């Protein structure tokens, strides 16, 4: 489903955001970036990141300490 997956597990603030920004460059407009992270702070941070950059945080979930985010790149 995702056009690109970023494994940010084990990385701490602000690396998941910085790597997501770089990974988004690899994603086509309206494409989807999947991010896997273990930093609990990433939830609030990806919400803020998406509000600021205009990309859409389609969903986020948590399973056994792994956070999963789907971000749709704005055109």
């Amino acid at each position, binding site marked *: 489903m995702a056009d690109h997956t970023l494994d940010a597990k*084990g*990385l*701490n*603030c*602000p*690396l998941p*955001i*910085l790597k*997501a*920004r770089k990974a*988004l460059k690899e994603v086509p407009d309206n494409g989807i970036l999947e991010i896997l992270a273990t*930093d609990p702070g990433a939830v609030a941070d990806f919400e*803020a*990141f998406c509000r*600021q*950059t*205009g*990309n859409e945080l389609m969903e986020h979930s948590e399973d056994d300490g792994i956070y999963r985010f789907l971000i749709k*790149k*704005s055109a």
Partner: protein
Amino acid sequence: MSSEEKSMSIIVTKGSLDWAYPPFILATTAAAMGLPVTMFFTFYGLPLLLKDLNLQLTAAGNPAMKMPMMGAHMGLPNLLTAVPGVDAACTKMMKNLMAKKGVASIEELRDLAVEAEVRLIACQMTMDLFEYSLEDMIEGPELGGAATYIEVATESDINLFI
């Protein structure tokens, strides 16, 4: 990607390992969020632009610095920080802890800042005072003074002094 057209500047005045983090974390994150960012390196912040970083920290005068150790949090009495080798050991512990917790190194954050085209200004007066030259520094910094910074600050939405 849309930008809110906000911008940020940071005056970087401290160059110990711990104090190097806030400016580089905030600069790289703001740049990732689409903000043009300028960092102005002055006084003890200036050596953060040197090619070779060997950042140190000290627990001297810092009662809040407590490291997690064997289930507790351990501080260091000021007197002990005067013992040769203690600061180096604290620095090593902090760097190990950071690596273990997935915290980026300052070198890594600085590379990301350069890559994100964060504007780096080296304070000319501090360069002169501490006898540094641009050849000692990484590629990218420009020279400037207080007026250069103030012009940036008047155009920035967020101005931080760290």
